[in-house]
């Protein structure tokens, strides 16, 4: 394994916090107006994306128990109770799928703000 370059590990904000404790000021470069506007736009979009993923997750975590509470255990798929499959196996691929969906959309929003501005 090649030896990687080692970097300073504090962010601008942590540097400020640590410097303030020593009585020094290390205020980071402030964002320009354009950057702030871009960041506000990204945050709004990310919030919308997050809300849709959270809604889907809530459907799984809040809704599925309600459903399983009423479906009888004796409904079977072959020898296996359907409700057991629904709690033991089903949630994991669903969660992984949601994670993948969220990751794709969040990265696209972040990288493609200029291109997507027209939308």
């Amino acid at each position, binding site marked *: 394994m090649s030896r990687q370059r080692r970097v300073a590990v504090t962010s601008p904000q*942590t540097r400020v916090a640590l410097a303030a404790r020593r009585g020094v000021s290390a205020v980071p470069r402030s964002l320009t107006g354009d950057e702030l506007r871009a960041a506000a736009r990204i945050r709004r979009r990310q919030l919308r994306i997050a809300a849709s993923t*959270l809604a889907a997750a809530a459907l799984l975590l809040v809704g599925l128990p309600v459903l399983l509470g009423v479906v009888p*255990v004796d409904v079977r798929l072959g020898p296996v109770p359907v409700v057991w499959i629904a709690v033991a196996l089903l949630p994991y691929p669903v969660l992984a799928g949601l994670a993948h969906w969220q990751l794709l959309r*969040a990265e696209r929003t972040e*990288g493609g703000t200029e291109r997507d501005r027209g939308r």
Partner: protein
Amino acid sequence: MIAFAVVPVVLATLLIGARGVAALRSTSDFLVASRRVSPTLNAAAVAGEYLSAASFLGTAGLVVKNGVGALWYPVGFTAGYLLMLVLVAAPMRRTGALTVPDFAEARLGSAGLRRFSAVVVLVIAGLYLVPQFTAAGQVLTLVSGTPHWVGIVVAGAAVSVTLALGGMRAATYVQAFQFVLKLLLFIVPAIWLVVAVGAGTRAEALRPAEYTAFPRATEVTFRLDTRLQVREPVTVLAGGVPVRLDPGEHVAPGEATWVFPEGAAVPEIAGAALPGSDTWQHPLLDGGNGHPLLATWSILVATALGTMGLPHVIVRFHTSPDGRAARRTAAITVGLLGSFYVFTVVYGLLGGVLLPELYLSGATDTAVVALPGRVDGGTTGAVFTALLTAGAFAAFLATSLGLLLALAGALAHDLLPGSLRRLRLTALLAAGVIVLFALPAVRIDVGAVVTSAFAVAASTFCPMLVLGIWWRGLTARGAFVGMAVGLASSAGVMALGLLARPDPGLVALLLGQPALFSVPLAFLTMIAVSRRDRPPAGAEAAMLRLHLDERT
């Protein structure tokens, strides 16, 4: 045979730990491996760190004790990473803060809030660590007959030496290695068990008969004082002496061994479900309080929201080079954890059929390790027992390592800022203190205490992180009051429940699993108090910065 299983795990942990020593130079190296870890390696490390005794042993044990509904626990454990990915992973990494208390100060600019957060870290890490060490003792007692304290001391020594030598740099490789190890040691025995038990037992596991009568003379060693509801008169051998029990309540003293005769009716225990009964087969959690849906939701809220507030998990995301890598780490972790947890059901269902007497003894946490011996009394069974013991021990080591780091970080980095040497020393001291706490804590229920750590994290750090990242209006005072209310309504209420011991019912449920109300309460308090304050001038820019890709 057992030394054969545990020694390689400890040795490998030490060797991989030592490998990191050469690279270790500064305090930030120690804490976050100088941030040069790829998402896949880091996700394996996160998963390795996260899969604790509660996951490896506790969940399957809870299935034996409470029924199929306990399978919601691992669902919540996994969903926690989805919520982390959605809400905190990337922005949190971009603050550059080393720990949660560091985040509190970076975002809200209050040194007092940082110290309060560090105290919360101590509470969560303590609640999480003590049961890990206790479980280590329990499993070693079961498989080798060594005294309880041997396991605790061995675990404490291995963990603290690794930490002191290598820190997080070592921990990243150790944790990633241990994830692969745990995954293999969980999946391979599960597949072997399914094959080895034969078609009859497999069919029985899917259509379990209620455990109403002992199918053979059954020896039960009670782990704790246990209240039994005897339904029919029965004569048991208590330490070899016949004792007649009339119908009604009887208390079996902890560590007593009773032999129930063949065909006798199985006594019931309040708060647990008879294996195979309708309640047991019902896919919702029922702790005997009569509100299965609320109980299930409460566990899911605590585990799914608590994950993002666990200090040892958050610090791990800071080993990613940037926000984007941190987000990918969280996404990969969801998949890795899922591939582990789908096998829990094998141990749970087989445990319910083959080891139903654990329901009486209370030693359900040992179900996973005890199963191979029940299926195969020969060498093969012994080998698989050894493999599962090694996996369980790896689980204690990995989780304890991360938790001790968070604990030492909170003490040495946030409460009393200091040098690398002080941080190493703190880790050693913290391990010693936890061992001292774990030694007398034989009587705690591993799964329950770990879940309480999740509830505390969900009620304190989760609202602070989510609001701090997405809402510019959060103020230091709001965060402080909200976390204090969250701490009181989670840890405080659970302590109250332990002291008051209410009768089963809604009150007992809410006192034992307060997340359902403590989390919303903490969020609302934080918002309400913050709205009375004016956020500082730079708050909006400080928040927006977290959503900007740092590479642009």
